[in-house]
């Protein structure tokens, strides 16, 4: 019986025949057929090998035109289609492409992505996190998401932001979120314990409605985290949090933050200004900058002119400290974090 061999490619693409390609994969989806069945079927029905590589793998499973499994291999160069969740499916047609090849690839890719969504038990949680943190979610969506994450079971919830590349310490609802400052992972936790080695922990939310505020504060805290203080809690910022939130709304950088930016094009670095605020001696600053302390002395004398205030006074030091914070908030990108 060779009736099925190459059948999908042999169908007349100009006619309603090619609908059979669509119907075929729809039936496999409805019938709850797994990825292997889909791939074997696609290979036999195309009369050419089919490959499928999951996200993060070097090579993928391959099936021959007779349905047998071949050795694993990469998709290099073959016509391919994204099959959901970073996976890819491809068709190894040695000779000229057949009229339905693109359609078959598209349909098997759709079938595989539907399957991966169906099997992804984390997806509903992820979507719930996204809904709760989104500004444009409808009230009923928000209520449903809150119910899914058992809001109300915890007295308080903290939104947390962690760099995308950082691994979570514990199983918590999470989702990748795009922000002005780059891609970041949003996490929701019933306490304010650190969820990862680097994190911005938002203020406590007493209801699902408060979560957006908690999330905004978490983004501020993560932007202020550094190697010295890898885990920052928004609650620890005190009144500075209100200031940071207000400044986040500004279209342009605050003049004090801009002054830091201008200074950083000269001999001063942000790191050295930070050290100055933290009370480093003139000698230590000179060593840090790799200059003679007399040179550093001259630089320090010029500093009030550049900043517009004197950082050696206590008011000036506070002002410089806040300016450094605003500068960091305006310039940090999550993708740069390592």
């Amino acid at each position, binding site marked *: 019986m060779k*009736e099925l061999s190459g059948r999908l490619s042999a169908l007349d693409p100009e006619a309603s025949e090619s609908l059979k390609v669509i119907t*075929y994969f729809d039936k496999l989806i409805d*019938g709850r057929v797994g990825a292997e069945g889909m791939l074997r*079927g696609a290979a036999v029905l195309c009369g050419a090998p089919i490959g499928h590589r999951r996200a993060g793998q070097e090579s993928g499973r391959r*099936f021959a035109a*007779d349905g047998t499994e071949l050795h694993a291999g990469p998709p290099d160069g073959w016509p391919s289609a994204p099959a959901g969740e970073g996976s890819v499916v491809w068709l190894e047609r040695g000779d000229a492409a057949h009229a339905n090849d693109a359609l078959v690839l598209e349909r098997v890719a759709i079938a595989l992505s539907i399957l991966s969504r169906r099997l992804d038990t984390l997806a509903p949680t992820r979507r719930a996190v996204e809904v709760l943190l989104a500004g444009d979610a409808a009230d009923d969506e928000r209520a449903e998401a809150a119910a899914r994450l058992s809001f109300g079971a915890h007295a308080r919830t903290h939104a947390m932001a962690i760099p995308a590349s950082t691994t979570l310490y514990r199983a918590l609802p999470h989702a990748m979120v795009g922000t002005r400052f780059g891609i970041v992972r949003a996490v929701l936790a019933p306490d304010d314990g650190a969820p990862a080695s680097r994190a911005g922990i938002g203020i406590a939310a007493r209801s699902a409605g408060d979560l957006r505020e908690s999330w905004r504060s978490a983004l501020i805290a993560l932007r202020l985290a550094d190697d010295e203080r890898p885990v920052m809690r928004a609650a620890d910022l005190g009144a500075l949090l209100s200031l940071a939130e207000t400044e986040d709304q500004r279209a342009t950088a605050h003049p004090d933050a801009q002054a830091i930016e201008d200074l950083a094009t000269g001999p001063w670095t942000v790191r050295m200004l930070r050290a100055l605020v933290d009370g480093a001696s003139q000698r230590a600053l000179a060593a840090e900058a790799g200059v003679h302390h007399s040179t550093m002395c001259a630089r320090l004398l010029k500093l009030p002119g550049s900043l517009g205030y004197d950082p050696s006074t206590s008011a000036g030091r506070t002002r410089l400290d806040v300016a450094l914070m605003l500068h960091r908030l305006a310039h940090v990108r999550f993708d740069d974090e390592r």
Partner: protein
Amino acid sequence: MPTYTAPPFDPELGAALDLVAGIIPPTFTPEMIPLMREMPFDPAFDELVASVGAVHEERTIPGCNGDEIVVSIYRRPGQDTAGPGIYHIHGGGMVIGNRFAGVQSFLPFVASHGAVIVSVEYRLAPEFPDPVPVEDCYAGLVWTAENAAELGIDPTRIIVGGASAGGGLSAGVTLLARDRQGPALRASLLIYPMLDDRNETVSSHQFQGIGVWDRASNFTGWNALLGDRRGTDEVSIYAAPARAEDLSGLPPTFIDVGSAEVFRDECVAYASQIWAAGGTAELHVWPGGFHGFDGLAPQAQVSIAMVDTRNRWLTRMLEA
């Protein structure tokens, strides 16, 4: 008249069946016999024979009533130690097909076990009604056993087997070999066999106008073989083994069938009867399988499981 709800086809099989809906009609009528006999020869067949290191030889031998029939033999050239013998009977509803159809499944055993395959060109109904087909098949088996030494076959390891009508004829030949005191059989392989001319089981009613080889097709085949005798007491157990009252004294028997085909219930009943008689039978009913699904859609996971299971049993039989 009760209404019958058929079990659904396995999703992979159902999807495949839809693709060939225009080529393989569910119903096979007598008018279609001449056209269906013009089956193209599998172009990959000779290549497959060569790939397992086999050579093909034809012999003309005496069939029913001493008439000449042809058998094809597939074995290693210069077979010097006796290997197992696979006596193959092709399918085709008693009315179509030839000795080359279905041999493909057994060729790998030439390479792996030094098997010798003998495939018989029995004469087809309606031109040659019962008992010609089953007697041709039996005559070929007798010839194979008598010439075992020359063919390179170990006479203690002869298996008879076939699919569909070939499965029914294999069951008939197995009964003849029992009742005529030979040849001795190591095992009997009945692949979705056609056993019951009466067409009265639940499964024979469940598949009408759907699937492969539906109720009407089954009438076409049995009517061609038995004519007016179909469904009467004039039908022998060798023509329709489902009619046998006594299934004792049979060699180990393997039966596989789909749950979504006409033959399901007669296959299950046949295995049950062998057990009831104190015999050895292995039965596999594959869910959602239509008739001959492993041949039509070999890539489906249920097909892979079916063929694998069948071959494991066959290997056990051939190896001892």
